[in-house]
């Protein structure tokens, strides 16, 4: 009887292919968002060897900026402009706002410590302070209530209503999130590999001191890195709001923690690694929610993190760094 108890754990609908496909699509969508966020962690870590705890809050502020643009343009039910333009404006405003916020965080919280050659623990504490500050600011100004994006109202609900392929289903919103993420990834990849500033970024990431001796303006590269990473987080925030339909002051903390896990799992410092890690964690979470329990999803993600760190400490796509003495 006990053996059947385990098998009977799953409902019959959970054992169908279409349910599996649903989890897969949801996982890839969620994973894209995590990946977008993880890139920010990874880029900053690559350049400064700094764990930017405040990145999650930048994401959260981006989500709020998107929400307020949405409200200013009439809300989801009666938008004043075409839906495509509306979403474009939301994402653009959030990217600019978050980018500027990220640069400000770097300027006030991290740069003084870098200049003072503070021990490595100091910027982490500063980052905790920033994260704390931004969360409290959000709860003072925007209240702790959930802000509803209400994406089900956008163009009569066509974006969120799933369409069917046989017995499988997915929605335009999921397609949109996945395609946008792919687009951002492509642009970022071109930026890092093809442009002057991208090359400078890679040089600084390789060796900050040597790069500065070669005439690279390290501060400029750092500001650029923070801007790009934070702008991607802002875009992620808006898409998260559109996909999951709401935002609240603590949204960044939870998502940030998981996105950092994704960055570590993928190999921190590596941009494709962040994306791979994000997808892996997104799929994992989605399957954990679908087949086990939503209460313990973070525990499952965490166990994977521990496993990856123990088996392959430098992550899936990371290169182990030789320690020089």
């Amino acid at each position: 009887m006990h053996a059947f108890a385990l098998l009977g754990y799953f409902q019959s609908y959970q054992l169908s292919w279409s349910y599996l496909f649903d989890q897969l699509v949801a996982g890839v969508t969620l994973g894209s968002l995590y990946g977008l966020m993880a890139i920010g962690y990874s880029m900053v870590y690559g350049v400064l060897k700094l764990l930017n705890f405040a990145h999650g809050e930048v994401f959260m502020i981006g989500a709020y900026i998107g929400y307020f643009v949405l409200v200013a343009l009439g809300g989801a039910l009666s938008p004043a402009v075409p839906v495509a333009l509306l979403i474009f404006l939301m994402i653009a405003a959030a990217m600019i706002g978050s980018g500027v916020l990220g640069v400000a965080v770097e300027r006030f919280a991290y740069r003084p410590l870098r200049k003072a050659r503070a021990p490595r623990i100091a910027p982490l504490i500063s980052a905790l302070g920033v994260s704390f500050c931004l969360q409290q600011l959000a709860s003072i100004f925007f209240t702790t209530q959930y802000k509803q994006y209400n994406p089900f109202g956008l163009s009569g609900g066509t974006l969120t209503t799933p369409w069917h392929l046989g017995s499988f289903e997915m929605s335009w919103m999921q397609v949109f999130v996945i395609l946008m993420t792919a687009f951002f990834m492509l642009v970022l990849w071109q930026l890092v590999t093809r442009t002057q500033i991208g090359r400078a970024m890679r040089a600084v990431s390789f060796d900050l001191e040597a790069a500065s001796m070669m005439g690279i303006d390290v501060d400029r590269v750092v500001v650029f890195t923070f801007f790009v990473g934070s702008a991607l987080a802002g875009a992620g925030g808006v898409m998260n709001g559109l996909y999951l339909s709401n935002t609240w002051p603590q949204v960044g903390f939870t998502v940030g923690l998981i996105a950092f896990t994704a960055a570590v799992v993928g190999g921190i410092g590596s941009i494709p690694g962040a994306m791979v890690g994000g997808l892996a964690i997104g799929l994992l979470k989605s399957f954990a929610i679908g087949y086990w329990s939503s209460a313990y999803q973070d525990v499952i993600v965490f166990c994977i993190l521990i496993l990856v760190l123990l088996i392959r400490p430098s992550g899936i796509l990371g290169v182990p760094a030789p320690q020089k003495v």
Partner: protein
Amino acid sequence: MSDSTPIVDAPVHDPEIGADEWVSRSGDRTTRRGGLIGRAEHELMRLPGTIRFFAFFGLLALIPVMTSDDYLIRIGTVTLVFALLALGLNVSVGYAGLLDLGYIAYYGIGAYGYAMLASSKFGVHWQAWAAIPTVVGATVVIGFLLALPSRRLSGDYLAIVTLFFGQIFYTLAVQGYKVSLLGLNKDLGLHSANWDVTGGPNGIANVDGFRIGSTTAITDHAYYYITLAAVVLVFAALHFANNSRTGRAWRALNDDTLAAQVMSMRINWLKMLAIGVGAGVGALAGTINGALLQGAFPDDYNTYVLITIYAVLILGGAGSLSGAVLGAIVVTVGLEALRPGTEFSDWTANGRGLFYVTILIVVLTMMRPWRRVLAVLGGTVVFGILLHVIIGAAWPRGVHGGILNSASTFDHGGSMGWAIRHWLVLPAGTFQTGGYTVFNYLVVLLIAMILGLTLLKGWMRDALLVPTIWLAAEVYEARLIEEGSGATRFLLLGAGLIVIMAKRPQGLLGKPRVEIV
């Protein structure tokens, strides 16, 4: 400058681990304070550490004798609990240099463990002498287990993994009211399919006080002395541990793990020991908090509390035991001063007196020479009066507000209240519902100005300091007072952390570390 070993007056030539000797001593010479305060500090530091230790804690022991205000004693107990927490965290973060962000879990396990062993939850009512060692011992074991990843991880990786430990503890505490053992609860002899272990979001209430024999500790005085005794014992024990072979090894580990390993130190064991010892102290603080609050509630053990503990330790100076205690006093009393609606006394209700005195002390101690101090303070007074007159002329209602003396009543507050009303700009109706929300923007402006202060130097900074002090007072009177125990004081705590890190990364009593490349 205090040293990291405050009890023993170390000879000057004793080589100090963790700081470059020459640089730190020459740095000490250039940054040493002058004037009366510097002289007093210097004389104080010449006393043997043992005397300072007993004098300080003796003074703390006298506080309940000097005041009969239960509220003050309760604040004192909370301060001591935070001091205890910071002392424990100091072992892993300050000595061994392991950024343990899961520390909150040990604190929580201590409280929940005690609550389960001494309440009607499971019908067991253990005596304190049995419950405390059991809980602390169990937590040390858990600490050792959770320290296992530190064998392979370091720095930020360890931080994130341990942060997850804290999150998992919180998740388990909140979700632990419907534990289902794979649907086999009934077969395992449990009555319900959802076994309630932690009480979920409501926590465990009606926990016994510490009980020995038939005596139960109930009064605030009792807990004050229990906590003080715990702090004194842990302080002394850690001091001796720090000066032992293990303590030196910990600090060597912090300086250079690889070198320590080459010197044949058992670094993995040392790391686990540091986290384990910290876990034990955290659990001790947890049992005290559980008995003090007569309950264990998940929101007392969340990330905010963790950040507060870190603020305490970092402010005081990681690696310094006396710093941990000082940090606890500054942070707890500071947070309390920013929590209006509680009676301190008379017109100083809402900790208002403390707020102004703190600003005054900071300006007096941080600025030299005297004419700069006078210029800034005088400028602040004149600035406020001018602004009051100008706004009063343009918009009379804008200066008609009273000042709030506690959460419910407001009056004119005597002569000091008169001074405040004629110095600040308090519009009529500030304290009606929603009337104070416009001051939210002043909070943002205040933060921007404080951050701006870190960018400027010389007379420009002094000039900016004048409106900043005035704005801080304005925000306090018009915004914080009304809000009560809300988000703004934590906001200011976060901002304070950033500014402290930027200005003095080693904390108040910490030693500046010189990174040798």
